[in-house]
């Protein structure tokens, strides 16, 4: 009896420890955002909170433009991603062939390659098609890099639906679009919503392609933050304030939808 109580205690403490360690850098960033530059040099938890760093950041750059670009890129790419992923997942879930599993695994394997490996070809392609520093280019790239995840997750949700329900709809008169809209969509909306949230978050935080393919017009928030890591030196307070402004929207979204996110991320685990 005592042993299990003790181990529960220990695991509890361990879990808290891990959570604190993970959250610690973010916590420091958040409090540093409210300091001025001089105080920001130290890690002291006692300080006089001030908004002067935020004001400087707002004065120096157009924060709202970066937010707008991040939103366009995240939501636009997620929509495009679903447009491509759902028909693919539908076919693989309801009309599987011998090659279906290996195709899915191959799709996932493309995520294992470091992005930097294709930086040059993608850059050249983007340049050729005139989408450098263009939000459309970013939307396309984000859609493509998230496609494997979208297909995989949609496939798993679709597999939960018995094929007979779609056949019943077919006999009732639904075309294939009717099947998707009237039957598949309502039944998989919770799962697809969590997938969409995940994709939005991944796109929002994406820092490699956004830094390389955009500069002024289409720059989303990661570029905004990076612009504060300048050769002039590191301005901790302003950097923290900028980071805080970049991360805040997505943290709020994540907090509000944490139930759906958890469900989406553990879809395969509980069978």
């Amino acid at each position: 009896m005592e042993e299990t109580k003790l181990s529960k205690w220990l695991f509890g403490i361990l879990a808290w420890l891990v959570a604190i360690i993970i959250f610690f850098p973010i916590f420091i960033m958040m409090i540093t955002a409210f300091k001025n530059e001089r105080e920001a040099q130290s890690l002291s938890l006692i300080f006089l909170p001030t908004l002067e760093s935020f004001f400087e950041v707002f004065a120096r750059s157009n924060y709202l433009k970066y937010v707008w670009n991040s939103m366009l890129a995240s939501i636009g790419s997620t929509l495009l991603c679903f447009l491509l992923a759902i028909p693919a997942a539908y076919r693989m879930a309801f009309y599987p062939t011998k090659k279906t599993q290996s195709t899915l695994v191959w799709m996932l394997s493309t995520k294992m390659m470091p992005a930097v490996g294709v930086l040059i070809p993608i850059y050249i392609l983007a340049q050729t098609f005139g989408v450098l520093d263009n939000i459309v280019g970013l939307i396309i790239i984000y859609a493509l890099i998230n496609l494997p995840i979208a297909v995989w997750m949609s496939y798993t949700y679709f597999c939960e639906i018995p094929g007979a329900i779609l056949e019943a709809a077919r006999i009732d008169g639904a075309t294939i679009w009717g099947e998707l809209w009237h039957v598949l969509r309502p039944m998989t909306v919770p799962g697809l919503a969590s997938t969409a949230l995940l994709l939005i978050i991944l796109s929002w935080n994406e820092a490699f392609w956004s830094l390389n393919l955009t500069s002024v017009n289409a720059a989303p928030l990661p570029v905004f933050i990076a612009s504060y890591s300048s050769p002039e030196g590191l301005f901790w307070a302003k950097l923290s304030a900028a980071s805080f402004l970049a991360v805040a929207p997505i943290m709020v979204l994540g907090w509000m939808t944490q139930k759906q996110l958890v469900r989406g991320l553990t879809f395969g685990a509980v069978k």
Partner: protein
Amino acid sequence: MNDGSVHMKNLVKTYLDEHGNPSFTAVKGINLDIKDGEFMVLVGPSGCGKSTTLRMLAGLESISGGTISIGERVVNNVHPKDRGIAMVFQNYALYPHMTIFDNMAFGLKLAKKPKEFIKESVTKTAKTLGLEKMLERKPGALSGGQRQRVALGRAIVRDPKVFLFDEPLSNLDAKMRVHMRSEISRLHTQMTTTMVYVTHDQIEAMTMGDRICVMRDGSIMQVADPLTLYRQPDNIFVAGFIGSPPMNLLKGKVHKVDSGLGFVEDAQENALTIPLRGKLEKLATKYVGKPIIFGIRPEHLSDQVSDPDHVPVTAAIEISEPMGSESIVYFKAGTGNLIARVPGEHLYHPGERLTVQLNMEKVHLFDGETENVIK
């Protein structure tokens, strides 16, 4: 105009592998004519092609060869919704996110029928199935039997020319199954619509069908009304499939015995020798020395009667299954078991020797090689 007859001509279904080469033929060129208003049961063991045939009729499976016609019209390339059919699935296949009303109304809504018409049709059908109080509930809140009735209702609302049933009672418990069997039969009597019913359960087939189509390995073994299948099976597959416990089928040859012919079992021990007289002797004359199969149903082995039409067989009991009003008794014969249904409440014990009388009027002889009945 409302001709719900179904005609299948040389119907074939072949599955292709990934290279487009034929890999497996599930339905091997069957010919079947179902009359308008008939209740036709497709029965057979798993993998015999009955479900595939039904699905081709429904339009859920493409047709590899041959034609299917509903009435005069060939429907090979017609979309399921335009064939005038409705289907009841094994797992009900109700739309879980819609109310019972919406489940039944779905097809009519897609067909853009007016609201009042939909309301009227659905409520009328719901009443005949006892579902009128549940129209606002969702399928998840209903029992298995209720869900099956909703599935039935959804099909009825479509006012089809042909009803299709794909093993609809398999998921119900025994009691509900018996109840739903009579509900469906009653529905058929009321609606006089053609019904095509797939099952692997020969009792369902025998009790519900006007005619039964027995299938095996993609081919039709026999099509006839239940009593004809019972009394005059065309081959040993049908003979052994219909009837529970199944017909006794003993392997052996025809030999000259005493003053005539007799059936001698092909076995080292416990081989039975049964004299063949009269009609049976005539049938057996062409088979002297050749392999035949001797068939007699357990219910035609009696322990009571003793007359010239009956041949006695005495053997030791291996197992006895008391059923209450009768006992199923298993004797050890040469090439298998000899099963008898002995009426009465007497308790039989293994090892007991019992004499049963074989009713020779009810014996069937089958060709040992072709497995077809000898006529």
